[in-house]
């Protein structure tokens, strides 16, 4: 059954692949904009310098560190831009998630005119869910920190040298598992909120808790499998990347962007799979999906064919 939902989820992502491409483009553009100021400074130092070749053919780490030690070019200078654009992307994703879930719920292609209102309708509800998710994560973060301190202490003081390392590994697996379960719970809460139009998020969370942990065996693979696929895909891509000549920047860039696309795609696959499961198991409580626009329909704001598909 889970394979069916996984397959259903992937076909929904494929059917609405414009969502994936749009997210990817926004991610890429914001990523590039975040380092624009740094690029200008690098160009000022490197474009006319023979020393720059040591960063292009091969990668002389010492030369790169010397570049980063120059005033205005250090790692600390790049951080604010990266952080700012990461937050913008984060807010963007918070906004469009409602529309994405609505799109995956619908058997039809959802138009822009419906996508963004659906996104807007869910935005503040998802902000509430985000706040509650962060609260729920706090003890996990505290536990993760405690494990890190413990493993550090073991690495220094325990007689077996690798004990701290194995505690780190075991702790990371446990924390990752807990984080995945919590994420799944709140994913289902979002799916439920979109499907039923639920406005009270605490009720949505309680309902989602019962659904998630009452059907854990069915739901968890819908989250885990795409996660594993993204990790395996990342490992394969990075392995290929290490074989690419240092000066083949274009090929390297394409490979790494495939990795970024893969990560976005697997995340959407999780959302689509969860939506598929919800639709098949909780149909009576669901609101109807947005119907396609029919020619001559007097519904205001809708027009045939002129609205670009999302």
């Amino acid at each position, binding site marked *: 059954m889970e394979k069916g939902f996984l397959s259903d989820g992937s076909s929904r992502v494929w059917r609405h692949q414009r969502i994936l491409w749009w997210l990817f483009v926004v991610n890429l553009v914001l*990523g590039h904009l975040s380092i624009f100021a740094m690029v200008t400074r690098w160009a000022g130092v490197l474009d006319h310098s023979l020393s720059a070749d040591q960063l292009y053919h091969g990668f002389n780490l*010492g030369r790169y560190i010397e570049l980063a030690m120059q005033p205005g070019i250090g790692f600390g200078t790049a951080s604010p831009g990266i952080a700012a654009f990461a937050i913008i992307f984060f807010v963007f994703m918070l906004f469009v998630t409602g529309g994405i879930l609505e799109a995956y719920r619908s058997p039809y292609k959802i138009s822009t005119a419906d996508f963004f209102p659906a996104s807007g309708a869910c935005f503040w509800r998802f902000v509430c869910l985000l706040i509650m998710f962060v609260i729920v994560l706090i003890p996990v973060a505290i536990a993760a920190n405690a494990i890190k301190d413990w493993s550090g202490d073991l690495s220094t003081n325990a007689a077996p040298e690798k004990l701290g390392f194995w505690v780190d590994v075991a702790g990371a697996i446990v924390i990752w598992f807990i984080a995945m379960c919590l994420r799944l719970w709140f994913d289902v809460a979002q799916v439920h909120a979109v499907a039923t139009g639920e406005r009270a998020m605490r009720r949505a969370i309680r309902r989602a808790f019962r659904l998630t942990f009452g059907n854990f065996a069915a739901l968890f693979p819908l989250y885990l499998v795409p996660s594993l696929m993204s990790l395996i895909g990342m490992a394969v891509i990075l392995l290929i990347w290490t074989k690419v000549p240092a000066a083949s*920047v274009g090929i390297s860039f394409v490979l790494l962007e495939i990795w970024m696309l893969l990560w976005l795609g697997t995340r959407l696959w999780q959302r689509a799979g969860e939506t598929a499961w919800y639709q098949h198991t909780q149909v009576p409580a669901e609101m109807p999906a947005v119907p396609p626009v029919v020619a001559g329909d007097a519904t205001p704001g809708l027009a045939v064919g002129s609205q670009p598909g999302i």
Partner: protein
Amino acid sequence: MDRARRWWFLIISVLAGATVMCAAQPMPSATLSDKPLSQRWLDYNIDARVDAQKHTLDATEVLTWHNFTGKPQDTFPFHLYLNAFQPKSTFIRETHLYDPEFEWKQKNYGAAEVKSLEVVGVGDLTSQMRFISPDDGNSDDHTVFQVKLPKPVPAGGQVQFKIVFHDQLPEVLARTGYKRDFIMGAQWFPKVGVWWQGAWNCHQFHRTTEFFAEFGTFQVKLTLPQNEVVGASGVEVSSANHPDGTKTVSFLGEDIHDFAWTAEPEYRVITDTFQGSMGAVKIRMLVQPGHMSSAPRYLHAVKGTLDRFDKWYGPYPYKQITLVDPPHGALQAGGMEYPTLFTADTTWWCPKGLLFPEFVTEHEFGHQYWYGMVATNEFENAWMDEGINSYTEVKIMDSLYGKDTSILNLLGAHMGEHSFQHIEYVPVADDDPMSRFGWQYMNGNSYGGITYGKTATVLLTLEKVIGEQTMQRALHTYFMRYRFTHPTQEDFLKTVEEVSGKDLRWYYDQAVYGTQVMDYEILGVRAERPDWYKENPSKPKKGETVYRNTVLVHRKGDFIFPLDVQIKFDNGETTTEHWDGRDRWVRYQYDKKARIVSAELDPEHQAWLDKNFFNNSYIRQSNQAPHHKLAAYWTVISQFCAQLLAWLV
């Protein structure tokens, strides 16, 4: 035979037999030389009992000091380095000054307590001991004490001190102490100061200083549990088990100025031999069970380093070298040198492309020469051991592991020793002069960056002035002339001038005694037609149109250094100008039927002291590929961070 003759026969037979027996058993020796290598001022005879559970040590030290000063001496300063590990000591005070986050922990407490001090033939002088603080007046610092004898020791005479002391070893904070069942016994015995430059030299122990001591012999007996695997300076002479579960291991060190030891039950012992020019040197490695994968790396580094030092600078004259691999959690004991013994450093996960075990091994072995045999004053001239050693580290690591890969060669990234030293130096380039006393640097970063990185970079740049081979000859001469003595910084600098035949004072005044920073740049290159003012100039034709090419070179820093400027043209021509570097700028102009392609300062890349290599060249046509590459990777990093944050949604 009558009775008298029978007795004489018996006596002669016994004497002959004894002589044969003595001849059959050679006297133990710790060096490959059949005569003393140094003026042996000191004979240390130490009998110590180690309590491995309590991390304490009780010992009796008989120190014979020979007065080679040429004048009577009645006052003797001693180091008690272990007393540095106390909260009010100068060492801890300075540690907190450099790092306000530093927390004092009681487990780091260490102490060396003199129970009694007797001068043989004079009597008990325990009550005459006085702690002194010659450097900073800190009366709470007990790392130096002084004792005055009622009668001076005449020139050419000797005095014998008998000192009973008790050590409390700290949990390793810096170099010495214990961690679990590992013990590093360093700076553990009362050590008399050095008579140097006509006076006693015996500084307090500071956060950024090391040690200074006189040459002599060491006969040390360590009594500890039988399950301990022991290593020490010198050579092991004997080992005897006792019924109480302990054993006494005896060591002999000759022509050395310090004695360190280590013990741990878990050590794995690996031995090998290096055939040096003076004879076979035994290599004894004490390796942690979890670090056995690093053992071949250690061995390769030790043997390669022994080989290069032997060929380039001079022979290693001791019978043994001991490498100690500290356990995890005791890395503060790692990367340290003692005569004929040094501590290395590694981790269980250290990949082959990260040459950390190798460069630590090379560096610490190098100290056998620059510190161990050429025993400079590490308090006052720290650059002379750390810096010269860092320079020879560059040469030897490059020779063994490749110029651009001698530090890192992993996943497409690489870094060589030259870069490594340069990176150490640049952030602190004008903080302090090399010649500053070790404890008077601005902070620990400056001390490290200047004594190691800047000195190595200064000597690498000096190769440009006198030549690489001349530099090697100078170091060889310096080593052979000053080994087993305590040279000053001028001794070294003058040796280099002597061997090179050049007056280098202009260089030393800036590089060693000054804080001038070298930074030359090509400000720009231009290629324009002389008829630029015409409204409709004729179309340019390659190889026929004349261009006015200019190169503007600027001295940005205040260090004056002569440099070559190499200019390349698009017709394949290359011109090299030599600039004395004295003025603030110079402009070169060429009218040619060709356009300039690039200009480069120091085309052979030997002026490592230059703070910024990126501005040392200028290409007329910009090449955006390198910055596009950085942009591509940083874009992906930014995207990754954004997606990571978006997981919260």
